Structures are given as structure tokens and as C-alpha cells.
């Protein structure tokens, strides 16, 4: 098997004295969509933030394309062309949609904004209609589209998405997940998706990991996990547990 694009090995992350990740191992190969599912507070977002260097892993090792990024500053990790659509979207509320998108190309000093805009608008036509509007005035779904589009403007090899379905209507979620699938198929974009919406995420992903209390308890292909009785009981069938 080839070297994974992103490899997480024995990562432990603490908030102060409280341990949030208790030795996590995970691989994402080039061209894959990998999802991490789990309940609230399982440590999914923490893992995603740890990959981006904030908070930092106390032990363990994270490599991306063979480079050790465990101790790298966040902005330098971003310059390796890993893009992130962080939890809570974090768009720039008082800047226009156009300016938000432009900031996505900051690592290349805004060199290829115009070419990439067309690509992003083809994916999310709604954003083109809203181009001169302030980011903060968009609806939740549009803000999520903007966050993903902004991340794409940096021409990433890998995209990290934290709960893109949070608080959105099912139809909007479907649109966003379709866009992710499209990007993966046409551009070969590698995607790491953190989700609570286990059913949709596992249907979209090639492989998945299940996290409980800071530990990865299960992994497999999306289909395997969807069929697994434990996953069904805990995350799919009304969540009675």
C-alpha cells in the first residue's frame, strides 16, 4: 500500500490537564474521502484542530505528504495546501463574499483569484448572486458554501471539513455533500470530513472512523460501517444509547 497523504500516529491532545485525544491513529490516502463520526464531545473537532496545529499534539506524530507537521505553526501548515473549513464556518462577516473568497487565495498573494472564481461559482452558483453582499448577511447554508469555497480558493490538495451539515436544512446538506463528491471525483481532491450526521457522511465517504471519548473505536469502509450493528445502534437509529 502507498504512503498515506495524511498520517496521524498515537496523537494525544490535552486542554490544560484534561485529555481530549487518547492516542489516535488515522490515515487518509490521496484521492479518498474519509469521514470521522462520533457523538458530541468525542474529540472529532479536536482531532481536526490538532492536525492544524492548534491545539498542538502533546505526544504522537502527524505527517502530511511525508512532512512532519506536528510542531509546525498553523499558517505554515495551510501553506502546504491543506485547506480547512473550520467549525462554526468562521467566514469574515463584514467583508463581502468576493473579499472572503479572495482571502482564500492569500497564500499565493491573490495571484489566481479570477480563474478560480469561475470554478467555485460553478460549484456554488448561489455565491455568485451574493458576490457583493457582506458575509455576515448570508444564510447559514450560504455561509457554509462560502466557507468551503474560500477553502477551495487556496487550490488545496486536501480539504478538512468540520461539520458542514450543522444547522442546515436537509436539502442544503445534500447540495453541499454533492459538491464534495463532485470535487473528489473530478479533481481528485482528498477530503477529511468530520460529521455528526453519520448516515450522510458514511454514504459519501470511502472510509470512515468512529470516535468515542477521544479514542477511535472502529474503522472500515463507509458501507461496512453503515451496516455495522454498533454504528447503527449508536449513530443511525435515533441514537438510543
Amino acid at each position, binding site marked *: 500500500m502507498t504512503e498515506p497523504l495524511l498520517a496521524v500516529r498515537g496523537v494525544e491532545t490535552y486542554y490544560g490537564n484534561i485529555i481530549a485525544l487518547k492516542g489516535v491513529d488515522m490515515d487518509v490516502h490521496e484521492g479518498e474521502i474519509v469521514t470521522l463520526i462520533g457523538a458530541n464531545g468525542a474529540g472529532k473537532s479536536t482531532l481536526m484542530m490538532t492536525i*492544524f496545529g*492548534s491545539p498542538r499534539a502533546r505526544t504522537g506524530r502527524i505527517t502530511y505528504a511525508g512532512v512532519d507537521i506536528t510542531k509546525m*505553526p*498553523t*499558517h*505554515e501548515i*495551510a*501553506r502546504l495546501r491543506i*485547506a*480547512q473549513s*473550520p467549525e462554526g464556518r*468562521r*467566514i*469574515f*462577516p*463584514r*467583508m*463581502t463574499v*468576493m*473579499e472572503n473568497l*479572495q*482571502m*482564500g487565495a*492569500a*497564500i499565493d*498573494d*491573490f495571484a489566481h*483569484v479570477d480563474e478560480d*472564481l469561475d470554478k467555485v461559482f460553478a460549484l456554488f452558483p448561489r455565491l455568485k448572486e451574493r*458576490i*457583493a*453582499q*457582506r458575509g*455576515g*448577511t*448570508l*444564510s*447559514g447554508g*450560504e*455561509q457554509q458554501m462560502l466557507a468551503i469555497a*474560500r477553502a477551495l480558493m*487556496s487550490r488545496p490538495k486536501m480539504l478538512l471539513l468540520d461539520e458542514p451539515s450543522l*444547522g442546515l436544512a436537509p436539502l442544503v446538506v445534500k447540495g453541499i455533500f454533492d459538491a464534495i463528491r463532485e470535487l473528489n471525483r473530478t479533481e481528485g481532491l482528498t477530503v477529511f470530513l468530520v460529521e455528526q450526521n453519520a448516515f450522510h457522511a458514511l454514504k459519501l465517504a470511502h472510509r470512515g472512523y468512529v470516535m468515542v471519548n477521544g479514542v477511535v473505536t472502529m474503522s472500515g469502509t463507509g458501507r461496512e460501517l453503515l451496516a455495522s450493528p454498533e454504528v447503527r445502534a449508536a449513530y443511525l437509529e435515533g441514537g438510543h444509547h
Partner: protein
Amino acid sequence: MSHDAPAAAPSIDWSRTLKDAVITGLIATAILGPFIGLVTVQDMEHRLILQTRWPLFLALLAILVVGRLLLQIFVWGRPAKPKRAPLALPPSVERIAAPFFIGLLFVFPISVLFALGPQGSIKWIDNYGIQILIYIMLGWGLNIVVGLAGLLDLGYVAFYAVGAYSYALLAKTFGLSFWVLLPLAGILASFWGIILGFPVLRLRGDYLAIVTLAFGEIIRLILINWVDFTSGYAGISGIPRPTLFGIPFNASDNGFAATFGLEFSPIHRTIFLYYLILALALLTAFVTTKLRRLPIGRAWEALREDEIACRSLGINTTTTKLTAFATGAMFAGFAGSFFAARQGFISPESFTFMESANILAIVVLGGMGSLWGVVIAAVALVGGFELMREMDFLKLIFGTDFDPTQYRTLLFGAAMVGIMLWKPRGLISTREPTAFLKERKAVSGSLVTEGHG
């Protein structure tokens, strides 16, 4: 029940309104009459004598009654109106507004000179023109730090002081000219900007404000206590005045007046200083508008919006913050060296926290990030204070020992409260976008609310 009845035209219940005003007047008379209208003073034989202050009483009574009446008619009596569009100039007006305004500034001293003569015009050019322009420049400089990068700086006056003392000390010690020292003062101030920047890199909001406040005080206390270097409270006097490329503004044979065959007058220097600070202020505005369109300026604005998002987009927030502090401080350094050269005397008294607060108030009242807002606020605050010195007619109402300038802070506070009530984002709250797809569109800050969900 039907809710779709047409909205009735706002009608005012006059009898109720008038009754309210009469009641206000009666209550005010009952309270103000004894307390304001009557006053006891001791005469030569230490006897208490009752005196009256009816003009003052009547003035206060009128303010209360008329004020309440106006509130009744225009504020309380009206149904809530839909939110008005923020103060924004249409693009066509905005395009000619800047050249027009700059042209006005250029002809201001000349026209004042023609209208009032050398004696009468010096006050207008110096107290109004130069003084306001210094604050506009400081406001524009601080605007980079507070308005663009969103770093609340309460110690901005420290960099102003660094610039002023740099010029004063270097000019007196080494005899260097103003034109050499102006950039040097800017560099030294921006160096101190970076010195301040390093320890506060991890701070935001309130915590940043407290540390910058402390930094401003540290600089001031050093200036007071390092007597050997700065002469402490006594200050530095006899600071060399700027020259027009080597031609001094004095009555000597090689002075400005003699060189150009004019009769010597101090107004020449004043007008020269006016154009000097005008050029410096315009440089500040020019650099700010250019920087906003460059990657670093965009990074500043993004940093103000969301620091975490900035980092995950590959922006180095450390250098972004330091360049904001350094650039803002540089302009304060320029302004500081101009200040020292204009005054000829500086002391720590000129660099108190109150100055920082004034400059910050200009930026906040004007609307953070808005160059026009800073101009309006500086004219209102600085010009307003100068005007108060001249309101001698108020003495007719409030008595001869009434000094309007004593009420400056009170009015200042009232203006603050008023602006925060009616224009919480400052006078000019529109933010001009710097990136466009096809056409320009102003995006308003207060017209639209932020979306959630």
C-alpha cells in the same frame, strides 16, 4: 381581528403634549427656583445676603421645557420608523468629494489670509487648520491599528511622544535638519511599535487595550523621570524650527521673507507648517487607501474579522499584527516630529492618556476604518473645542465666571453617548469593499443584520 388597516398618519395629541410641558415647567420651577434662582452670599460683615440668579434659572427652565416638548413631538410622539439608511455618499459624489475636499484644504490658508489679513488669520490657520490636521493625521494613523487590524490601542500617544522627542533631542544634540529627522522619527516610532507589538501578540480586545494603556503610561513616565535625557517635567525648549529646504522662516537676511522679497511676518511660517501637516496627513490617507488593496492590508482587515480563520488560510498573524503596529506608529512618529517642530517646546504634559483617548474617540466616533469619518470627527471634536473658547456670549446667560471650555469633557461624553445611541458603528459605518467582480457596490454596516443559523 383585522390587522391590515392602513397606518394612520402620525398625529400629535397637542393638549396632552402642552399639559406635559406645563407640568415639566412647574416641577422644574419648584426644584430649580430655590436651588438655582436663589443663592446666599456673605457680605463684608459676614452676613448672609440673598441674591437672585434669574437669567440662569430661566435659561435652564427653558432648556428643560423646550427639550421635553421637542422630545414629545419628535421622538416619543412618533411611531417607530424603519431604520434609516446609514450615512453613505453615492459613488458619483464620493468620487468628486475627495478632490473637492483636498482642494478646499489647499486654498483654505490663502483665502483666510486674504479675508482677514496676516494678524487675523493666524488664529484660524494655526488653532483650527493645523490643530485639526494633526488630529486627522493621528486619527488616520490609529485607524490602521484599530480600524483596519482591529487591535484596540489605548497608548497610541506613546508613539506620538517618541516621534516628538526623537526630533527634539536629535535636532538639538546633532543639529540635524527637520527633513532628515522626519523619516528617522517615523522609523524610531515604528520600531517602538514593534517593541510594543511583541508582548501583546497573543492578546486581544480588553487585555490588549490594558497593556497598550500601560505602555503609553510607561513611555510618559520615562519621559518624566529620565531627567538627564529628557529634562523631565521641564520639557525641551528651543527646538529648531523646520526650514523650507534650508531657508529659515525668520527676519534674517537669508530668511524666507528676504529671499522672496516679502515683508517679514510670522504668518509665513504658519502657512508653511499648515501645508507641511496637510502633506503629511494626505500621505497617511494615500498610504492607507493603497495598503487596503495590497495583501497586507487585506490581511489586516481579515485579522480584525477572525484571527483563527486567518491562520487557517495561511496568513501569518504575527507579522500581520506587527506590521499594523509599526505602520500606525510610524505615522504617529511623523506627526510627533511635526508637533515638536511646530511648538518649539515639548514636555510630557502633551502626551497624557487623555490625548490617546481623544484620538481613539475620533476614530470610534467617525466610524472604525472610515477615513471620512475621522475627518468629520476630528473637525467636530478639535474644532468644536476651539470654538468653545470663543463663546463669550454664553457669559451673558451663565454669569461672568462661566468658562465654556470647562464643560468640554461633559459635552464630549454627551456626544459619545449620543453617537453610540444613534450610530453605534460611528458616523460613517459603510465599509468600502476592496475587491469587485464587476461593479462597485457600497455595503452597509448598519442596514443589514448578520444572518444566523
